[in-house]
């Protein structure tokens, strides 16, 4: 997994609430067996019209925010389906951090597996960052995961919380399957006693 390093970028404002994973990437683009290349379909039905032309009023089609590495989003971002294609599309487009108030659980989980940092903030802090984001290219926001600080364009710092385990994995680009494999003895011993307690769940 790609390591998360400090990111400085304009923040693209997406204030709409309940942006679901079908909006992030519609289901018809899930017919792929690859993880890569989905950035071109990110926010497809908002970003493009039915002929595939860019919709000029969508934020990522405007010069100030095109290619933004940070999104500032409305409440309950990422609700809906479990498709990891949503964080894949975001990461492939170049998004590294998403600043909001709350995120749907599965989307939140999936993001950390893909070098993408979703940050939960109190509404008033998010609202300040939304105002910064709306100022466009003169307002750059910095997200520093190591120190758990967001720096606003005027220099004000906003601290944020993140699960220590997820932070560690993100900073070091760790694959958690490898880490779990190191605990194989615990899994073996769980299975050995479970096989006695609930033998009907195991093939003979």
């Amino acid at each position, binding site marked *: 997994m790609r390591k998360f390093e400090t990111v400085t970028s304009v923040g693209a404002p997406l204030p709409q609430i309940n942006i679901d994973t*079908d909006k992030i990437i519609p*289901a018809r683009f899930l*017919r792929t067996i690859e*993880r890569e290349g989905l950035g071109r379909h990110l926010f497809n039905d908002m970003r493009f019209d039915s002929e595939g032309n860019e919709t000029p009023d969508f934020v990522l089609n405007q010069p100030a925010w095109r290619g933004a590495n940070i999104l500032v989003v409305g409440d309950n971002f990422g609700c809906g389906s*479990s498709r990891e294609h949503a964080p894949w599309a975001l990461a492939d487009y170049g998004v590294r951090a998403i600043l909001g108030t709350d995120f*749907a*659980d599965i989307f939140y989980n999936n993001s950390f597996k893909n070098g993408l940092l979703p940050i939960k903030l109190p509404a008033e802090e998010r609202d300040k960052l939304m105002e910064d984001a709306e100022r466009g290219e003169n307002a750059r926001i910095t997200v520093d995961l190591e120190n758990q600080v967001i720096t606003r364009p005027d220099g004000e710092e906003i601290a944020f919380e993140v699960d220590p385990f997820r932070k560690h994995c993100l900073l070091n680009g760790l694959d958690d399957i490898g880490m779990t494999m190191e605990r194989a003895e615990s899994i073996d011993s*769980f299975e050995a006693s479970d096989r006695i307690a609930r033998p009907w769940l195991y093939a003979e």
Partner: protein
Amino acid sequence: MSEPRTLFDKIWANHLVDTQEDGTCLIYIDRHLVHEVTSPQAFAGLRAAGRGVRRPDATIAVADHNIPTRPGARAGVIENEESRIQVETLERNVVEFGVPYYPIEDVRQGIVHIIGPEQGMTQPGTTVVCGDSHTSTHGAFGALAFGIGTSEVEHVLATQTLIQRPARNMQVDVEGPLPAGCTAKDLILAIIGRIGTAGGTGHVIEYTGQAIRDLSMEGRMTVCNMSIEAGARAGLIAPDDTTFGYLKGRPHAPKGAAWDAAVAVWKRLPSDPGAVYDTVVRIPAGEIAPYVTWGTSPQDALPITASVPDPAQIDDEDRRQAVQRSIDYMGLRAGQPLREIAIDTVFIGSCTNGRIEDIRAAAAVAQGRKVADSVRALVVPGSGLVKEQAEEEGLDRILTEAGFEWRDPGCSMCLAMNDDRLAPGERSASTSNRNFEGRQGPGGRTHLVSPAMAAAAAVAGRLADLRDLD
């Protein structure tokens, strides 16, 4: 005497492999359901790392999202190349990794959340995962069941575990009997309308009360299925005699002495008296009516007798804008009675409402009536076994005589990954689970309803109150 525990607390404790100092838990996964859309990258990851599947005996695979449902279409090759590649990739992966698979021509093939319970894979007190958010369906059996992303699919395939933190407990108590004409779908739409699409975030919802206990397993699956639309990690219903009755004799259910031992374990699962929930919501069943959604979030649910809301009367600015955007997208006007909304398409099916009871409910309304000329109406059974049973009961004839199309099983128009989709601007009454913008096809407009209400809409050519049918 230990602290009283909830059903969730007990399942969690029973599956804890270990806990790290920071509270991160490794939990054991009993059952893993795999489908063609969210698994190819996971199998590719295993292959790249030289890893195998730890417990093929705890895993089943099926193709459902991409499968054509036109009668006869599945006999040939899938026309859409990307869909075909995805299904073929799954077929190769299950052979390479030794995972049990229900091929398209097998009568047991169907939507993954329909066939898991049908085959007896889903059992009380188990942990069940799938790379699909509607895995919450299996909570109807008192199983802790939740959707995961593809990285976690790979993690479970390789290790049979997941790294998790415990959820909070929420109780949604629906006391009293459901009023006439109301179904499990109306019940869950009413709940989501009440608590909102993020109301369950971070929680596992346990549904309790008479209205829940009275439901069949099919109805309980409908309720738990849509827990994710309330933002919950999972839904749960305590196992009881209804659960055991459904499971007994199914292919993967325990047999003989093992059955008795399992039932004894399962009977200890329900929440203890006095168990504490972090959040409690009480809804009198008498308040529930046949529901429909008017907007583009499942929380936009109202009784069929209501009207489209007026944004001008909403104080919260974010909410007002969202409502206005939904009304615009849906092509409605504020104050419009829901019963006046004309529809073009009816979709009866999906993991929410594609089971035998749902087909029966639709057929009961269709019997002796005709689908309106302006309406295309599809009935897509959730599995080959549901289809077979419906045909044995003659439901297919009732439906086709009324003008419904009788299809082969699959996810179909719930998410329009196969050929079944709405054209831009088309409007459906749909028994599926999501009314998001474009969910049933770009520009499509979706109203979520129960199977009986969908059949009533097909007959009326508009959203209709089934209690008004002649």
